[in-house]
């Protein structure tokens, strides 16, 4: 399979590479890139079952592929710069792809597809003379999905990291202190930001900035925010619920008897919260068992009723 691809690719690109070698290195680079892209397009076409293709269409596809890859690069760069980094990370690429409407989940499978073609190494122009450096350790071999003509891994010491930890902060007091001040800083920054960007109220007429209060804004339905637990709390509850359920038993002897009642009620409720979304469904299921007038279907109007109502 790989062979067929190779021939198809080499047919179109091989000839051109020879003639244009005299141009300057930049052109050279572009040409080489374009040639490689053409090879890729050709191989993909072959993979898709084409036996031959018109030059114009191959050119068009190449152009498209080039723009697509350029766009990935551009966006990825933007994303990484947005987060104040210089090197794009994998997640930047992923976000880019998602943004461009590409289903990232399908990528690994695609990469490992069986009928995959491997592109032959581009003709080596002047092989850069790598200064023989001190080799340290064994270079890692390429994993199977990286073609062998790709550059070798650099020496292990350049990328393998042996992290040296500072003594982990295990002192409880420091941890708490840190957590507390961190949270406080975040809260303060956040509220200050909100206060700066929105309307504020102040307790002092002469100074509106030292203690800015985010202006009170009435809600259309005030009870919803007041009663419903925030998502954060819901999340917390789910996390703590399972772990601490068993502790319930030792609170049962409290004089305040709600605890006992609560335990039952809470179990009830957690299941409620989980089933919440499927509640309407489950109610339909219960309907057959429960005879409640509010669950009965609404009747169609009767002709007779018309008179009595009017």
């Amino acid at each position, binding site marked *: 399979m790989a062979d067929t691809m190779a021939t198809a690719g080499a047919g179109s690109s091989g000839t051109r590479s020879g003639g244009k070698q005299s141009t300057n290195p930049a052109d050279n680079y572009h040409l080489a890139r374009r040639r490689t892209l053409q090879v890729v397009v050709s191989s993909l076409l072959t993979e898709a079952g084409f036996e031959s293709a018109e030059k114009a269409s191959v050119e068009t596809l190449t152009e498209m592929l080039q723009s697509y890859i350029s766009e990935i690069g551009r966006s990825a760069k933007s994303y990484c710069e947005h987060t104040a980094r210089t090197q794009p990370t994998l997640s930047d690429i992923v976000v880019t792809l998602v943004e461009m409407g590409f289903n990232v989940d399908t990528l690994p499978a695609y990469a490992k597809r069986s009928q995959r073609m491997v592109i032959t190494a581009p003709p080596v122009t002047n092989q850069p003379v790598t200064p023989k450096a001190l080799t340290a350790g064994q270079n890692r071999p390429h994993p199977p999905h990286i073609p062998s003509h790709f550059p070798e891994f650099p020496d292990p010491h350049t990328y393998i990291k042996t992290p040296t930890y500072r003594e982990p902060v295990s002192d*409880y*007091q420091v941890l*708490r*202190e840190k957590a*507390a001040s961190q949270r*406080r800083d975040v*809260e*303060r920054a956040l*509220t200050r930001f909100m*206060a700066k960007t929105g309307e504020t*109220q102040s*307790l*002092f007429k*002469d100074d509106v900035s*030292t203690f*800015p*209060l985010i202006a*009170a804004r*009435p809600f*259309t*339905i*005030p*009870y*919803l*925010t*007041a*009663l*419903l*637990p*925030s998502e*954060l709390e819901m999340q917390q*509850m789910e996390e703590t619920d399972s772990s*601490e359920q068993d*502790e319930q038993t*030792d*609170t049962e002897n*409290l*004089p*305040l*008897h*709600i605890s006992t*009642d609560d335990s039952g*009620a*809470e179990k009830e*409720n*957690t299941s*409620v919260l989980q089933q*919440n979304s499927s*509640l309407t469904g489950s109610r339909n299921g*219960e309907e057959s068992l429960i005879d*409640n*007038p*509010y*669950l009965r279907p*609404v*009747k*169609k*109007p009767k002709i007779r009723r*018309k008179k009595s*109502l009017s």
Partner: protein
Amino acid sequence: MPPTGLEPARMNRKKGDKGFESPRPYKLTHQVVCINNINFQRKSVVGFVELTIFPTVANLNRIKLNSKQCRIYRVRINDLEAAFIYNDPTLEVCHNESKQRNLNYFSNAYAAAVSAVDPDAGNGELCIKVPSELWKHVDELKVLKIHINFSLDQPKGGLHFVVPSVEGSMAERGAHVFSCGYQNSTRFWFPCVDSYSELCTWKLEFTVDAAMVAVSNGDLVETVYTHDMRKKTFHYMLTIPTAASNIALAIGPFEILVDPYMHEVTHFCLPQLLPLLKHTTSYLHEVFEFYEEILTCRYPYSCFKTVFIDEAYVEVAAYASMSIFSTNLLHSAMIIDETPLTRRCLAQSLAQQFFGCFISRMSWSDEWVLKGISGYIYGLWMKKTFGVNEYRHWIKEELDKIVAYELKTGGVLLHPIFGGGKEKDNPASHLYFSIKHPHTLSWEYYTMFQCKAHLVMRLIENRISMEFMLQVFNKLLSLASTASSQKFQSHMWSQMLVSTFGFLKSISNVSGKDIQPLIKQWVDQSGVVKFYGSFAFNRKRNVLELEIKQDYTSPGTQKYVGPLKVTVQELDGSFNHTLQIEENSLKHDIPCHSKSRRNKKKKIPLMNGEEVDMDLSAMDADSPLLWIRIDPDMSVLRKVEFEQADFMWQYQLRYERDVVAQQESILALEKFPTPASRLALTDILEQEQCFYRVRMSACFCLAKIANSMVSTWTGPPAMKSLFTRMFCCKTCPNIVKTNNFMSFQSYFLQKTMPVAMALLRDVHNLCPKEVLTFILDLIKYNDNRKNKFSDNYYRAEMIDALANSVTPAVSVNNEVRTLDNLNPDVRLILEEITRFLNMEKLLPSYRHTITVSCLRAIRVLQKNGHVPSDPTLFKSYAEYGHFVDIRIAALEAVVDYTKVDRSYEELQWLLNMIQNDPVPYVRHKILHMLTKNPPFTKNMESPLCNEALVDQLWKLMNSGTSHDWRLRCGAVDLYFTLFGLSRPSCLPLPELGLVLNLKEKKAVLNPTIIPEVITGNQETAINPSGHAQLVGFQNPFSSSQDEEEIDMDTVHDSQAFISHHLNMLERPSTPGLSKYRPASSRALMPQHSPGGDGTPLTKPQWGMELARKGTGKEQSPLEMSMHPVATAPLSVFSKESTSSKHSDHHHHHHHEHKKKKKKHKHKHKHKHKHESKEKDKEPFTFSSPASGRSIRSPSLSD
């Protein structure tokens, strides 16, 4: 006084359970209510009702029904058009915009107006004439069907629309409507007989938008689409005879939850709240089981519905087979504090289903039975659910509340019996409102009434045992259910009505005990008992000499005669003694069992059989007494002030196992700031077996003691090390453990301790820096990530603690408060508050508890001069659209600001809100808060007190609040607080000396300025015809057939009012007297002093007291100069008055009324004179002649 109205009440007691005599000449058997259009946009309702009635007298030609607000289009009786008159005197209580501004006058007129439409007196706003074609039919006592078409447009009361202004259809917006009101208020939304005693069966139909649900009473028979399929009609049938007042409705896009334990129970809530609803109602079935078990009676209705709605009128409202709750009771499993409160509300409403809805009452004076029983069984539920400690604590709390209220206001009467309306028979002469009707009652009074009712039920239980008590309830219920199943024998239905007599008879039948003395003491009579106890130990006789005194002369008290339990804890054990409290015996000798002995190491047996080791070193060596308790079971409604030594209180706190005793000793220890008290309190705080509420109050007591001992206090601030030990990390004591609220007991303690600690003060009267840092650290290190429960209440209390730590700013010659001169401690506090308040915007807490606390704290900072006093912030939080708790907190701050800064603008803003706010509860609450924290009171000079304000408030009570009984009574409360009973002192005398009495077709002197005879001359006063004149003047209904309803109280009170003003006239200190124009002298002078019977009717002491008051007052030179002007016409008056003539016909019967009384008055006149001399207190407390013992007692003695 309408004799018709009072008949049933009196009859009940006399005639007995022969029963119920309907005040109406017909019996209602069935009513159809059909609402076929509800428009949320316009807030309107269109529908009809059809009442099926059977005449009970042959000549029935008028049918009176209740209806308010409704526009009535058409009335038909048996398909014949019927004429009708609509007259509602309560719309505007005092007509003619007379310049009457005294509350006495208003209250009487208001009571008369309510009587005039009172269904229990057979009256109503709507009077329908039976067409003459049907007279024959009526004579045969045949059935009449009254069909009334009506509509309601933008109802201001009775039905409340909640329509959020967002995009979308009404259902998507969560728009809903529900019925609400105080007592019988059904007449606000459909014509009916709005009485608790007129039972009938019901057919209810509501056509609503297809996306909505209509919840109402009884069984949902079917739901049918309309022809266009866009609406559906809910058909309800209620076959159990029910009073109209127990009919309710709630329509909205409700989420439906069928109770998983009881399928006949359905819960409804607003969209998105279903998870909360599930959790909140998951407990309800246990309440059902409990009540059914103790009452050995099934829940009387075939179904039960709970509806949770927004902008609720009250938290809990019970109606036949359904209850309407505030949506704010809903909570998730993470909320600790709200859980018991909500469960209490659920249980309360369910208790009222049995007693209040299913069993109704015969008349208003029987209300106490229903409230008492439902409150009592609710108490039993509390005992079972929260334990005996909680129950006893609650009883103590309720007892303290009622005692405080009665001592303050002069008594709550459970079973008022009204005589002929004479003043001496007025059972509530100490009050500024009438207690003849629920609708004239102050809300606070009614709350206290309910409280007293259940406490009295508990007293009855103490007397006859719980077993008998429950048997009585069961008997009432089974009688009622038998009656309710008699579908076609409507005369049987009166068995479903409870009366005081019936209830008492049932008790005596079941228990065979005579509880009449108890009833007489607590039910037929108002007031509580006030004991003062002290003791001495007689070593020689080994006898405890106990002295128990009573104060039964102060207002709100009564004399107690009968058994009283005293528990004495001695070294040898605890002994109960029952003393007989009699008229003259104050001293009681109680023999002691143990000789005083020390050094013998022996355990001391306690009341509950427990034996404990005690350190007896603190004891008095000569006495074996550890502690003494008077009435430990709270079997008397009383206040006890008992004197015993500090060590006895300390022993009591440590070793007495009853939480009430512990609570009492904590209160007493406040007066003993000694190291021993400190130790006792600290020990209690640490004792985990001790009831958490006791420990909580120990915190506050400890703070007080620490402050009293500030100079000798050693060690860290009180409670600090204790808190550290209990709640902070072992390794780093300045950091609090991450929150774990699994043990509610310690949760409550953890919440409370910092709040109490913040009350600590150092020698400079500042909160110690150490304490503030400590609280700030608690806030800083608060970590709730691992907690199963929300910490919103905890954080809110931390803010409360910060607020508690604030002390008044040191002000240098009233400088303006700016940031620069902000105290550094306050800066820290303010920083926390700012952060908390801002975080609430992003991550709101449950019920916005934190915002509420922040707002309160800001007000505290303002009040203490750290932050410029400014209501703007509060006003923005008080706007409609904020959560109700926030609004109330903000409004409270504005009310406080209004008081402190005497701001007219803010007062106007509040008054405007009282009139215009969309939420009835908020309006009510503002009035309530203004009453509790008034900008000024009647004896206070204030720039706010001016004529415009008086007019405004008067208008508010008179006509502005006619759609809401509770609000109107709230306005009356406020008016009373601000101006008292008589004419507000800031008012000038009325400009018009003359008024036209159209009825008599002549001009008379304005009754408000009828001059009294010279003060010195006690013998002459206004003669009867003088006030007879008044009657005609003031009774706005005299044109109707209610002439006989003229209230004699009115006469008296107005008379007092006049005499008051006459005195004012003579003492020209009256402000604004200059406005008085002597022009009146040109007219007919009023009928003044007596022709034949010159008996003076005015209370003589009046003149005396007022005279002193008058002269005592500072007189401005201007006013002094007015004197001659004023006296000139006066002399004319006094002369002219003698030549007056008797007035006309319609006052005759008053003379008859009067005659008997005149004698008393005369007899006691001189006595009063002397008494009045002894009274140094404010004479205006007697501004009502109807108030005060001195007037009542003589008539009683006769």
